């Protein structure tokens, strides 16, 4: 086990303490594992709350700040947070105009956020929910828990966050978030498994020279194992997988995301191949973001997320944002 930790049990609170020390703009409630914008609740603004299992950093805590989330709840590693955290977060950010829960589509996240929404509504907070389900590796059918929420979460948080910052009402923020979800699809590839602190060994066994296609962000194996491929081939497969589900009629936002242990130099090289693959398929790219944004601990690998973006989404994407993980225009 090659981990820079003390003991598995304190990984999450230790990280939150370190986050608090690095980011004076955030209020970090380490005990309850809630990260909140220092200026929350922001007068007359819809509050945005997300959260999920830890291990995907900078998602979600790193996206708390002006123009994005108002609060994030950190669960244990790969474990959805509990309803108490979410209601606490909702109460901390509600300025009377309601709160949007941004929920990645996993059974645990859905159940816990649902319970939290009920509790928050009991306390008089107006709550809307949007479910992010962009991973095309999972068929959305009666025979699965539905597509997973992965990279599109960043797009939803950024774009809904910008709308909320502009003063849009809850229904509008929710509708925009839903529009982003519907316009976004992702596909991920693992070159290595990740190691959770609690388990201490890789979550699955991936021999050198093989890769997993269609992985999620929780160390679960993918849908298919293949002999190692070049960056060129991985880009082709990933882009094809996404485009099979999403046929963009206009320009897209592209997220070329690292799973945690893939060096930036490789991600940039992969981005070159993704851009090529998209161009070859007639898809034009309006904005590209390359980096480790929605990760899976120390997994080596990558994912791509495309979001068909009309002028409104583009404008909201370009709007100023000031968070530890994403910052521009401020």
């Amino acid at each position, binding site marked *: 086990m090659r981990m820079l930790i003390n003991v598995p049990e304190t990984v999450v609170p230790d990280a939150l303490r370190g986050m608090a020390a690095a980011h004076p703009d955030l209020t970090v409630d380490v005990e309850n594992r809630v990260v909140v914008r220092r200026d929350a609740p922001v007068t007359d603004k819809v509050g945005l709350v997300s959260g999920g299992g830890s291990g995907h950093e900078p998602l979600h805590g790193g996206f708390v700040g002006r123009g994005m989330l108002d609060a994030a709840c950190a669960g244990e590693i790969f474990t959805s947070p509990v309803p108490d955290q979410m209601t606490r977060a909702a109460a901390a950010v509600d300025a009377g105009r309601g709160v949007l829960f941004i929920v990645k589509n996993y*059974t*645990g996240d859905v159940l816990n956020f649902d319970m939290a929404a009920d509790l928050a509504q009991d306390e008089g907070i107006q709550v809307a929910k949007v479910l992010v389900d962009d991973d095309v590796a999972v068929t959305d059918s009666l025979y699965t828990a539905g597509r997973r929420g992965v990279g599109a979460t960043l797009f939803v948080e950024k774009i809904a966050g910008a709308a909320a910052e502009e003063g849009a009402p809850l229904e509008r923020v929710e509708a925009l978030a839903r529009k982003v979800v519907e316009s976004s699809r992702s596909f991920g590839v693992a070159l290595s498994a990740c190691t959770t602190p609690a388990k201490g060994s890789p979550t699955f066994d991936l021999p050198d020279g093989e890769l997993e296609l269609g992985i999620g962000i929780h160390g679960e194996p993918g849908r298919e194992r293949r002999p190692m491929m070049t960056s060129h081939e991985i880009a082709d497969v990933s882009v094809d997988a996404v485009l099979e589900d999403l046929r963009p009629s206009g320009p897209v936002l592209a997220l070329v995301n690292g799973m945690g242990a893939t060096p930036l130099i490789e991600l940039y090289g992969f981005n070159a191949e993704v851009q090529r693959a998209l161009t070859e398929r007639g898809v034009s790219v309006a904005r590209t973001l390359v980096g480790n944004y929605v990760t899976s601990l120390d997994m080596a690998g990558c994912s791509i997320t495309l979001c068909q973006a009309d002028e409104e989404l583009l404008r909201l994407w370009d709007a100023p944002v000031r968070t530890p993980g994403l910052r521009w225009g401020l």
Partner: protein
Amino acid sequence: MRHVLDAEFFRRWMLTAAAAVDREADRLTELDSAIGDADHGANLKRGFTAVRAALEDAPPETPGAVLVLAGRQLISKVGGASGPLYGTLLRGTGKALGDGAEVTDAALGAALEEGVGAVAKLGGAAPGDKTMLDALVPAVAALGDGYAAARGAAEKGAEDTIPLRARKGRASYLGERSIGHQDPGATSSALLVGALAETAEAVTGG
């Protein structure tokens, strides 16, 4: 069987379950690692540690209150899919037990059926989907034949998840590749039913 079960019985059940979870946590995590995200053991350990602490802190006085308290702890401490589901199982069962100081085996059986029903409703799963229901549903059905029969049914139900293809929860992402692995939640359910049987044996002589 025809026992009268008091709050102490339910407290012992929960503590026995907590001990079983502690003992088997690594195995549960290992199973979850194959078709999930390698946290089921840690999740339940955290949850039942909280249950144990809560029951020691302020032991409730009725069977129903014991299970409701335990269920609340799981909801507040576990997270993930299993937190709300097991929390709902115990809360639902506890509520169905009412607030009498003692309950009969039959009442427990009926309450468990309600609890399991609440789990099915919350999670939208049915037997055969490769979830905890594959252990819980046969266990409740076998309860009429005694606690030992329920344990056997739960264990068999858990083992029988091996050839199934998951249709709910994280394992469903694997499609065909979920086949050949035992479901971690069904396995922990068998532990809970096993703890019930063990408690019944110890406290009431079976």
